[in-house]
């Protein structure tokens, strides 16, 4: 029983980290209708910058998080200007390819700058263990859950309660008409990327103390984020939460009770099954095309 509870908590916690990874992706995915393969690399760059700030400049971890988010936010904007903006009117698939190019660039640029060695990011919570009725919880992991919840709240507010969220989607759908409505389209897109990249960086900096930091760490993150976003429904924050938690739990139960080799197979199978029965994801609205 304790084991089951512990596994459930494990799944929940790891699920929250997936939510965190997926948030920035679902934002850009939903608003701009593009598969951004560079998302995991933004996360990775965020982690490296935090390492640089914390161990290089000796800044406290809690300060390194927002700073890394800021810097990566700017990086996200630069990336959008250089690699995505010129493709705004072209086929979606070109955007995806461009993002692949960007991810290759970032991965290798980071390796050139920082070298290929894995690193650590120190956090005051890393070595904090909380015992709870036979279960053990790690401080940093709880911190992740806490910050994820906070960011989800903020993001949810931005998208649902502010006009910016709608404006983002409007720009994505029809830039010209969005402009006619008085929306400063360029600014909105810049903002979307800044926020999306900042969220990726937050995931990087928060997860870095739990896992380690190396140039290819983003690849897996991108994949997990895709699964989460699709499970929940593209652009849907509630969906990302559900998707992330489901993925976390499924993986954990699969590894804990069945076969750790096949845990990833199981999560992909679940994703595909969900899509077959709910083609727009668990929380996506499926709209029959009107002709």
């Amino acid at each position, binding site marked *: 029983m304790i084991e089951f509870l512990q596994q459930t908590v494990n799944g929940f916690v790891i699920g929250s980290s997936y939510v965190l990874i997926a948030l920035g992706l679902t934002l850009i995915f939903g608003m701009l209708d593009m598969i951004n393969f560079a998302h995991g690399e933004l996360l990775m760059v965020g982690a490296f910058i935090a390492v640089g700030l914390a161990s290089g400049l000796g800044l406290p971890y809690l300060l390194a998080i927002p700073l890394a988010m800021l810097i990566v936010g700017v990086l996200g904007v630069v990336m959008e200007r250089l690699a995505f903006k010129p493709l705004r009117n072209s086929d979606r698939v*070109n955007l995806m*390819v461009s993002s692949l*190019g*960007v991810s290759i*660039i970032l991965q*290798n640029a980071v390796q050139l700058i920082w070298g290929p060695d894995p690193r650590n990011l120190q956090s005051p919570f890393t070595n904090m263990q909380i015992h709870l009725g036979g279960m053990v919880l790690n401080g940093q992991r709880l911190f992740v859950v806490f910050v994820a919840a906070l960011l989800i709240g903020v993001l949810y507010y931005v998208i649902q309660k502010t006009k910016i969220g709608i404006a983002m989607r409007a720009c994505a759908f029809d830039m010209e008409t969005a402009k006619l409505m008085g929306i400063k389209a360029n600014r909105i897109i810049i903002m979307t990327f800044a926020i999306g990249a900042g969220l990726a960086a937050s995931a990087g900096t928060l997860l870095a103390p739990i896992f380690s930091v190396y140039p290819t760490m983003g690849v897996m993150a991108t*994949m997990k984020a895709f699964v989460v976003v*699709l499970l929940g429904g593209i652009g849907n924050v509630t969906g990302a939460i559900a998707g992330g938690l489901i993925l976390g739990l499924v993986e954990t139960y699969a590894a804990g009770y069945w076969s750790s080799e096949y845990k990833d*197979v199981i999560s992909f199978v679940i994703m595909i099954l969900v*899509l077959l029965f709910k083609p727009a994801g668990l929380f996506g609205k499926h709209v029959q095309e009107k002709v």
Partner: protein
Amino acid sequence: MNKKLLAGLCLLFFVAFPIVFPDDYFIHILVMGGINVVLVLSLNLISGFAGQVSLGHAAFFGIGAYASAILSMNGIPVWVAFVLAAVISAVSGFLIGYPVLRLRGHFFAIATLGFGEIVHLLINNWVDVTRGPMGLSGIPKPEAIFGLDFSSKTHYYFLILAFTVSAIYFSTRIQQSKMGRALVSIRTDEITASAMGVNVAYYKILAFTFSSAIAGIAGAYYAHFVLFLSPETFKLAMSINVLLMLLIGGMGSILGSVLGGLFITIVSEYLRTFAQYQMLIYGVLIVMVVIFAPKGLSGVLEKVSGFLRKTVFQKSQMKGGYSAHEPTHSAD
């Protein structure tokens, strides 16, 4: 007529190449390029013609490779194994495509990504059959045929050339038949396609099945050429690379598929000179190509030849055939 002449000259060039220029390294790279070209042509059927962007193509390459390797290691002649590999890949393509092709756009892309990873993980974990991460070695070379005994690269070169030409021919026949028109209409607008009498589901599955079969043959060839297989070859990175080749070449274009496959293979090799900057430059190159040539190399070629035609030849109105006009659709 002109096009046929050009194609003939190209073929002549490629046949003559290893004889005139017997450099093992170039031949090797051309063989690798050939494998990629066949693979890109196969992806082009489903992603180019039918517009369903797949991120899991490496799976079929892998299935073909493993099927052929395992069969031939169990005593089945390599040539038979080739055929069986195609059939097995086709069947897997059908089984995977059947449910997934109902999904659209990004959903399809990510679902195929998921399937790609599933296949990779199965290859990795089904140790009894695939030897899993230990990899398969001891794969036989193809049996001697038509005076080719596959002791030298050149023999492999002619085999992949034959495969490539067949794949080009196959693709061209599809493109210039009702199936090609159906696929392109599906890519453009599924509802219109069905309202014009096209059985959308059927053609999608058919394209996916053909695509898988050809990818399977490419895989089988790879297995009997490199003579060693291990699961990490057949991962997302490879699916992405094939898709990149297709996009850089020009989605939906047969000529583009050929150009893209060769271009990326050769450029990657060339970039070796840049040592640690190799991948960085590669990334920049990809971004630049999509930005400056969004229709890929075939689009550029089309433009250039269109320009030449206009200015140099002053040729009037082109004859309107289906493939002659659609810019993303140049026949080979």
